[in-house]
Protein backbone atom coordinates (compact mmCIF):
# COMPACT_ATOMS: atom_id res chain seq x y z
CA UNK A 1 0.00 0.00 0.00
CA UNK A 2 1.36 3.35 -0.94
CA UNK A 3 0.70 6.22 1.40
CA UNK A 4 1.54 8.64 -1.36
CA UNK A 5 0.76 8.41 -5.05
CA UNK A 6 3.67 9.44 -7.18
CA UNK A 7 4.19 9.68 -10.89
CA UNK A 8 7.20 7.92 -12.35
CA UNK A 9 9.00 9.00 -15.51
CA UNK A 10 11.11 6.11 -16.69
CA UNK A 11 13.90 6.32 -19.28
CA UNK A 12 16.04 3.43 -20.54
CA UNK A 13 18.80 5.99 -21.07
CA UNK A 14 19.15 9.64 -20.13
CA UNK A 15 21.88 12.28 -19.70
CA UNK A 16 21.20 12.73 -16.01
CA UNK A 17 17.94 12.36 -14.11
CA UNK A 18 18.60 15.58 -12.14
CA UNK A 19 19.31 17.57 -15.31
CA UNK A 20 16.14 16.21 -16.92
CA UNK A 21 14.06 17.27 -13.93
CA UNK A 22 15.61 20.75 -13.82
CA UNK A 23 15.06 21.25 -17.54
CA UNK A 24 11.43 20.20 -17.27
CA UNK A 25 10.64 22.01 -14.06
CA UNK A 26 7.55 23.68 -15.47
CA UNK A 27 5.88 20.29 -15.95
CA UNK A 28 6.99 18.54 -12.76
CA UNK A 29 5.71 18.77 -9.21
CA UNK A 30 6.67 17.54 -5.75
CA UNK A 31 6.56 13.77 -5.68
CA UNK A 32 7.34 13.08 -9.33
CA UNK A 33 10.18 10.63 -9.78
CA UNK A 34 12.58 10.32 -12.70
CA UNK A 35 14.25 6.93 -13.12
CA UNK A 36 16.79 5.83 -15.69
CA UNK A 37 18.48 2.52 -16.37
CA UNK A 38 21.51 4.26 -17.73
CA UNK A 39 22.91 7.77 -17.41
CA UNK A 40 25.22 9.08 -20.10
CA UNK A 41 26.12 12.30 -18.29
CA UNK A 42 25.67 11.46 -14.62
CA UNK A 43 27.42 13.82 -12.26
CA UNK A 44 28.07 14.60 -8.65
CA UNK A 45 28.96 17.95 -7.14
CA UNK A 46 30.69 20.41 -9.47
CA UNK A 47 29.86 18.27 -12.49
CA UNK A 48 32.17 15.53 -11.28
CA UNK A 49 31.37 12.53 -13.38
CA UNK A 50 29.33 9.81 -11.75
CA UNK A 51 30.21 6.69 -13.72
CA UNK A 52 26.92 5.21 -14.75
CA UNK A 53 27.46 3.04 -17.75
CA UNK A 54 26.01 -0.03 -16.09
CA UNK A 55 22.30 -0.65 -16.48
CA UNK A 56 22.20 -2.41 -13.14
CA UNK A 57 22.52 0.62 -10.90
CA UNK A 58 19.88 2.92 -9.48
CA UNK A 59 19.70 6.40 -10.94
CA UNK A 60 16.72 8.32 -9.72
CA UNK A 61 15.62 11.84 -9.01
CA UNK A 62 12.86 12.76 -6.62
CA UNK A 63 11.27 16.06 -7.59
CA UNK A 64 10.84 18.33 -4.57
CA UNK A 65 9.54 21.28 -6.60
CA UNK A 66 8.90 24.28 -4.37
CA UNK A 67 9.12 22.18 -1.19
CA UNK A 68 10.47 24.59 1.42
CA UNK A 69 12.20 22.22 3.88
CA UNK A 70 15.27 21.55 1.79
CA UNK A 71 18.03 22.73 4.13
CA UNK A 72 19.79 19.53 5.16
CA UNK A 73 17.40 17.31 3.19
CA UNK A 74 20.38 15.44 1.72
CA UNK A 75 21.11 14.22 5.26
CA UNK A 76 17.53 13.00 5.56
CA UNK A 77 17.87 11.19 2.22
CA UNK A 78 21.09 9.56 3.42
CA UNK A 79 19.27 8.22 6.49
CA UNK A 80 16.49 6.89 4.23
CA UNK A 81 19.08 5.09 2.09
CA UNK A 82 20.86 3.69 5.14
CA UNK A 83 17.52 2.39 6.47
CA UNK A 84 16.68 0.79 3.12
CA UNK A 85 20.07 -0.93 3.00
CA UNK A 86 19.45 -2.05 6.58
CA UNK A 87 16.12 -3.61 5.53
CA UNK A 88 18.11 -5.69 3.05
CA UNK A 89 20.58 -6.68 5.75
CA UNK A 90 23.39 -4.39 4.61
CA UNK A 91 24.95 -2.31 7.37
CA UNK A 92 26.08 1.11 6.21
CA UNK A 93 27.67 4.25 7.57
CA UNK A 94 27.15 7.85 6.51
CA UNK A 95 30.10 10.07 5.70
CA UNK A 96 28.95 13.62 6.34
CA UNK A 97 27.09 15.10 4.72
CA UNK A 98 25.57 12.36 2.59
CA UNK A 99 27.84 9.67 1.20
CA UNK A 100 26.75 6.14 2.09
CA UNK A 101 29.58 3.75 2.85
CA UNK A 102 29.60 -0.01 3.30
CA UNK A 103 32.81 -1.47 4.67
CA UNK A 104 34.27 2.02 4.19
CA UNK A 105 33.56 1.96 0.47
CA UNK A 106 31.11 4.30 -1.21
CA UNK A 107 27.89 2.62 -2.28
CA UNK A 108 25.64 5.64 -2.86
CA UNK A 109 25.72 9.39 -3.40
CA UNK A 110 23.12 12.09 -3.18
CA UNK A 111 22.99 15.42 -4.97
CA UNK A 112 20.37 18.04 -4.23
CA UNK A 113 20.05 20.82 -6.76
CA UNK A 114 17.87 23.90 -6.53
CA UNK A 115 17.21 26.71 -8.94
CA UNK A 116 16.12 29.96 -7.33
CA UNK A 117 14.69 32.95 -9.12
CA UNK A 118 13.45 35.71 -6.85
CA UNK A 119 11.17 34.10 -4.30
CA UNK A 120 10.57 31.00 -6.44
CA UNK A 121 12.59 27.81 -5.98
CA UNK A 122 12.59 24.42 -7.61
CA UNK A 123 14.51 21.52 -6.05
CA UNK A 124 15.42 18.01 -7.09
CA UNK A 125 17.08 15.26 -5.09
CA UNK A 126 19.19 12.81 -7.03
CA UNK A 127 20.26 9.40 -5.76
CA UNK A 128 22.85 7.15 -7.30
CA UNK A 129 23.14 3.69 -5.76
CA UNK A 130 25.52 1.02 -6.96
CA UNK A 131 23.65 -2.24 -7.35
CA UNK A 132 26.04 -4.19 -9.49
CA UNK A 133 29.54 -3.18 -10.50
CA UNK A 134 32.17 -5.23 -12.24
CA UNK A 135 35.75 -5.00 -11.03
CA UNK A 136 36.59 -2.94 -14.13
CA UNK A 137 33.81 -0.50 -13.32
CA UNK A 138 35.03 -0.20 -9.73
CA UNK A 139 38.49 0.66 -11.01
CA UNK A 140 37.05 3.22 -13.40
CA UNK A 141 35.26 5.03 -10.56
CA UNK A 142 38.51 5.78 -8.80
CA UNK A 143 37.19 6.02 -5.25
CA UNK A 144 36.78 2.74 -3.42
CA UNK A 145 33.30 1.55 -4.30
CA UNK A 146 30.89 -1.06 -3.08
CA UNK A 147 27.65 -2.29 -4.59
CA UNK A 148 24.55 -4.04 -3.29
CA UNK A 149 25.57 -7.12 -5.29
CA UNK A 150 28.69 -7.52 -3.15
CA UNK A 151 26.37 -8.44 -0.27
CA UNK A 152 23.06 -9.51 -1.78
CA UNK A 153 22.89 -11.02 -5.23
CA UNK A 154 19.23 -11.97 -4.98
CA UNK A 155 17.75 -8.48 -4.99
CA UNK A 156 16.23 -7.05 -8.11
CA UNK A 157 16.66 -3.41 -8.96
CA UNK A 158 12.94 -2.72 -9.10
CA UNK A 159 12.45 -3.85 -5.49
CA UNK A 160 15.31 -1.62 -4.36
CA UNK A 161 13.95 1.39 -6.25
CA UNK A 162 10.41 0.84 -4.95
CA UNK A 163 11.66 0.52 -1.39
CA UNK A 164 13.73 3.71 -1.61
CA UNK A 165 10.85 5.77 -3.02
CA UNK A 166 8.30 4.39 -0.58
CA UNK A 167 10.62 4.90 2.37
CA UNK A 168 11.40 8.47 1.29
CA UNK A 169 7.74 9.49 1.06
CA UNK A 170 6.71 7.55 4.17
CA UNK A 171 9.27 9.48 6.20
CA UNK A 172 9.10 12.94 4.70
CA UNK A 173 6.20 13.87 6.97
CA UNK A 174 8.50 13.24 9.94
CA UNK A 175 11.22 15.31 8.26
CA UNK A 176 8.80 18.15 7.73
CA UNK A 177 7.71 18.13 11.38
CA UNK A 178 11.05 17.59 13.11
CA UNK A 179 13.78 18.37 10.60
CA UNK A 180 17.26 17.11 11.35
CA UNK A 181 16.52 16.99 15.09
CA UNK A 182 14.20 14.03 14.44
CA UNK A 183 16.98 11.97 12.87
CA UNK A 184 19.98 13.38 14.75
CA UNK A 185 20.51 10.40 17.08
CA UNK A 186 20.25 7.92 14.25
CA UNK A 187 22.54 10.04 12.10
CA UNK A 188 25.18 10.17 14.83
CA UNK A 189 25.05 6.41 15.30
CA UNK A 190 25.39 5.95 11.54
CA UNK A 191 28.15 8.54 11.17
CA UNK A 192 31.48 7.22 9.96
CA UNK A 193 33.18 10.34 11.29
CA UNK A 194 32.01 10.68 14.88
CA UNK A 195 34.92 11.02 17.34
CA UNK A 196 37.41 10.83 14.47
CA UNK A 197 40.14 13.31 13.70
CA UNK A 198 39.30 14.77 10.30
CA UNK A 199 40.36 17.40 7.81
CA UNK A 200 37.59 19.36 6.14
CA UNK A 201 38.24 21.59 3.21
CA UNK A 202 35.96 24.56 3.37
CA UNK A 203 36.09 28.20 2.27
CA UNK A 204 39.51 27.69 0.65
CA UNK A 205 41.03 26.64 3.94
CA UNK A 206 41.47 23.40 5.76
CA UNK A 207 40.07 22.74 9.16
CA UNK A 208 41.59 19.95 11.24
CA UNK A 209 39.89 18.66 14.34
CA UNK A 210 37.87 16.04 16.10
CA UNK A 211 34.24 15.48 15.15
CA UNK A 212 32.19 15.86 18.32
CA UNK A 213 28.75 15.62 16.75
CA UNK A 214 26.22 17.47 14.65
CA UNK A 215 24.17 20.59 15.24
CA UNK A 216 20.38 20.48 15.37
CA UNK A 217 20.30 21.49 11.73
CA UNK A 218 22.94 19.03 10.50
CA UNK A 219 26.15 21.05 10.52
CA UNK A 220 29.16 18.98 11.49
CA UNK A 221 30.72 20.11 14.78
CA UNK A 222 34.49 20.02 14.81
CA UNK A 223 36.67 20.77 17.79
CA UNK A 224 39.71 22.67 16.66
CA UNK A 225 42.13 24.15 19.22
CA UNK A 226 39.58 23.86 22.06
CA UNK A 227 36.98 25.71 20.07
CA UNK A 228 33.95 24.19 18.38
CA UNK A 229 33.30 25.09 14.78
CA UNK A 230 30.04 24.27 12.98
CA UNK A 231 30.63 23.55 9.31
CA UNK A 232 27.74 23.62 6.85
CA UNK A 233 29.73 23.32 3.68
CA UNK A 234 32.89 21.54 2.78
CA UNK A 235 34.40 18.25 1.93
CA UNK A 236 35.97 15.77 4.29
CA UNK A 237 39.33 15.17 2.67
CA UNK A 238 41.06 13.13 5.35
CA UNK A 239 39.96 10.84 8.18
CA UNK A 240 42.41 9.60 10.77
Amino acid at each position, binding site marked *: MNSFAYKIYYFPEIGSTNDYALRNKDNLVFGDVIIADKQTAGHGRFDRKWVSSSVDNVYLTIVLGDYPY*VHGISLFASIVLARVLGLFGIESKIKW*PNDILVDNKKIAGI*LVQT*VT*QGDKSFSVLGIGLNVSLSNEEKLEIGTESACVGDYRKDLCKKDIVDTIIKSFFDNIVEWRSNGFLGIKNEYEIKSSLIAKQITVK*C*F*QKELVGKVIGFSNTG*EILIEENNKIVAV*NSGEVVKVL
Partner: protein
Amino acid sequence: MNLKDIEKLIKLVEDSGLSKLSVEEDGIKIELIKEAQEVVSYQPAPVVHQVSVPQAVAPSASAPLVAQVAVEPQNEAGVEMFLSPMVGTYYAQPSPEAPVFVKVGDKVKKGQSLCIIEAMKLFNEIEADYNGTIMEILVNSQDAVEFGQPLFKIKKDA
Protein backbone atom coordinates in the same frame (compact mmCIF):
# COMPACT_ATOMS: atom_id res chain seq x y z
CA MET B 1 40.56 68.32 -7.89
CA ASN B 2 37.84 70.96 -7.45
CA LEU B 3 34.32 71.41 -8.74
CA LYS B 4 35.56 73.40 -11.77
CA ASP B 5 37.80 70.51 -12.77
CA ILE B 6 34.90 68.07 -12.43
CA GLU B 7 32.70 70.34 -14.52
CA LYS B 8 35.38 70.38 -17.18
CA LEU B 9 35.57 66.59 -17.11
CA ILE B 10 31.82 66.29 -17.44
CA LYS B 11 31.83 68.65 -20.41
CA LEU B 12 34.66 66.69 -21.94
CA VAL B 13 32.76 63.40 -21.66
CA GLU B 14 29.52 64.97 -22.91
CA ASP B 15 31.08 66.43 -25.98
CA SER B 16 33.15 63.36 -26.75
CA GLY B 17 32.12 59.98 -28.07
CA LEU B 18 33.29 58.44 -24.81
CA SER B 19 30.79 56.50 -22.77
CA LYS B 20 33.00 56.15 -19.71
CA LEU B 21 35.93 57.99 -18.14
CA SER B 22 37.81 57.17 -14.95
CA VAL B 23 40.19 59.59 -13.27
CA GLU B 24 42.06 58.98 -10.06
CA GLU B 25 43.93 61.75 -8.24
CA ASP B 26 44.97 62.18 -4.60
CA GLY B 27 42.91 59.19 -3.53
CA ILE B 28 39.73 60.53 -5.10
CA LYS B 29 38.34 58.44 -7.87
CA ILE B 30 35.91 59.92 -10.34
CA GLU B 31 34.05 57.75 -12.74
CA LEU B 32 31.89 59.31 -15.40
CA ILE B 33 29.52 57.03 -17.25
CA LYS B 34 27.33 58.27 -20.06
CA GLU B 35 24.09 56.33 -20.17
CA ALA B 36 20.64 56.64 -21.67
CA GLN B 37 19.49 58.87 -18.83
CA GLU B 38 22.85 60.62 -18.77
CA VAL B 39 23.51 59.91 -15.11
CA VAL B 40 27.04 60.89 -14.28
CA SER B 41 28.28 59.71 -10.94
CA TYR B 42 31.14 61.04 -8.92
CA GLN B 43 32.25 58.58 -6.28
CA PRO B 44 34.67 59.34 -3.49
CA ALA B 45 34.19 56.35 -1.22
CA PRO B 46 32.34 55.70 0.99
CA VAL B 47 29.79 58.45 0.45
CA VAL B 48 28.29 58.54 -3.00
CA HIS B 49 27.62 61.84 -4.65
CA GLN B 50 25.56 61.86 -7.74
CA VAL B 51 25.79 64.54 -10.33
CA SER B 52 23.07 64.49 -12.92
CA VAL B 53 23.41 66.27 -16.17
CA PRO B 54 20.06 66.22 -17.93
CA GLN B 55 20.83 65.86 -21.61
CA ALA B 56 17.57 67.57 -22.57
CA VAL B 57 18.96 70.85 -21.34
CA ALA B 58 21.25 72.32 -23.93
CA PRO B 59 24.67 71.66 -22.55
CA SER B 60 26.64 74.77 -21.90
CA ALA B 61 29.20 75.89 -19.38
CA SER B 62 26.40 77.37 -17.30
CA ALA B 63 24.16 74.29 -17.42
CA PRO B 64 22.79 73.73 -13.92
CA LEU B 65 24.30 70.79 -12.11
CA VAL B 66 21.91 68.82 -9.98
CA ALA B 67 23.83 67.31 -7.14
CA GLN B 68 22.51 64.56 -4.89
CA VAL B 69 24.20 63.07 -1.90
CA ALA B 70 23.33 59.47 -1.26
CA VAL B 71 24.78 57.69 1.75
CA GLU B 72 23.09 54.41 0.94
CA PRO B 73 24.51 52.96 -2.26
CA GLN B 74 21.18 51.14 -2.75
CA ASN B 75 19.62 54.47 -3.48
CA GLU B 76 21.52 54.92 -6.71
CA ALA B 77 18.97 55.15 -9.45
CA GLY B 78 17.93 51.69 -10.60
CA VAL B 79 20.77 49.97 -8.77
CA GLU B 80 19.69 47.03 -6.65
CA MET B 81 21.56 44.94 -4.14
CA PHE B 82 21.12 41.31 -5.11
CA LEU B 83 20.91 39.37 -1.85
CA SER B 84 21.82 35.79 -1.01
CA PRO B 85 18.69 33.67 -0.52
CA MET B 86 20.51 31.27 1.81
CA VAL B 87 23.51 30.66 4.04
CA GLY B 88 26.36 28.68 2.49
CA THR B 89 29.39 28.85 0.26
CA TYR B 90 29.34 31.14 -2.76
CA TYR B 91 30.68 29.77 -6.04
CA ALA B 92 31.27 32.04 -9.02
CA GLN B 93 31.43 29.17 -11.49
CA PRO B 94 29.58 25.87 -12.01
CA SER B 95 32.77 23.79 -11.68
CA PRO B 96 36.42 24.65 -10.97
CA GLU B 97 37.38 24.49 -14.66
CA ALA B 98 34.35 26.33 -16.01
CA PRO B 99 34.22 30.07 -16.73
CA VAL B 100 32.52 32.31 -14.18
CA PHE B 101 28.77 32.83 -14.48
CA VAL B 102 29.05 36.63 -14.62
CA LYS B 103 31.62 39.42 -14.69
CA VAL B 104 31.35 43.12 -13.85
CA GLY B 105 29.81 44.91 -16.80
CA ASP B 106 27.89 41.86 -18.02
CA LYS B 107 24.33 42.35 -19.13
CA VAL B 108 22.17 39.72 -17.48
CA LYS B 109 18.74 38.54 -18.45
CA LYS B 110 15.96 37.32 -16.20
CA GLY B 111 16.53 33.60 -15.70
CA GLN B 112 20.28 33.78 -16.27
CA SER B 113 22.43 32.02 -13.66
CA LEU B 114 24.52 34.35 -11.50
CA CYS B 115 26.19 31.97 -9.04
CA ILE B 116 25.82 28.82 -6.98
CA ILE B 117 25.39 28.75 -3.22
CA GLU B 118 25.95 25.44 -1.49
CA ALA B 119 25.19 24.21 2.00
CA MET B 120 24.91 20.60 3.18
CA LYS B 121 25.35 19.44 -0.38
CA LEU B 122 22.40 21.39 -1.64
CA PHE B 123 23.59 23.28 -4.69
CA ASN B 124 21.40 26.28 -5.33
CA GLU B 125 21.80 27.92 -8.72
CA ILE B 126 20.75 31.51 -8.28
CA GLU B 127 19.15 33.18 -11.27
CA ALA B 128 18.56 36.84 -12.00
CA ASP B 129 14.90 37.74 -11.55
CA TYR B 130 15.14 40.83 -13.74
CA ASN B 131 17.22 42.18 -16.63
CA GLY B 132 20.15 44.40 -15.78
CA THR B 133 23.86 45.03 -15.72
CA ILE B 134 26.31 43.70 -13.12
CA MET B 135 27.87 46.81 -11.58
CA GLU B 136 29.81 45.11 -8.82
CA ILE B 137 30.44 41.62 -7.44
CA LEU B 138 30.66 41.90 -3.67
CA VAL B 139 31.93 38.42 -2.77
CA ASN B 140 34.70 36.09 -3.88
CA SER B 141 34.30 32.52 -4.99
CA GLN B 142 34.21 30.13 -2.02
CA ASP B 143 33.38 32.89 0.46
CA ALA B 144 31.01 32.00 3.25
CA VAL B 145 27.82 34.00 2.78
CA GLU B 146 24.92 34.69 5.08
CA PHE B 147 21.21 34.80 4.34
CA GLY B 148 20.43 38.24 2.96
CA GLN B 149 24.06 39.21 2.36
CA PRO B 150 24.52 41.42 -0.72
CA LEU B 151 26.19 39.44 -3.53
CA PHE B 152 25.93 41.78 -6.49
CA LYS B 153 25.12 45.36 -7.33
CA ILE B 154 22.91 45.19 -10.38
CA LYS B 155 21.62 48.11 -12.36
CA LYS B 156 18.11 47.20 -13.40
CA ASP B 157 17.15 47.85 -16.98
CA ALA B 158 14.71 50.72 -17.26
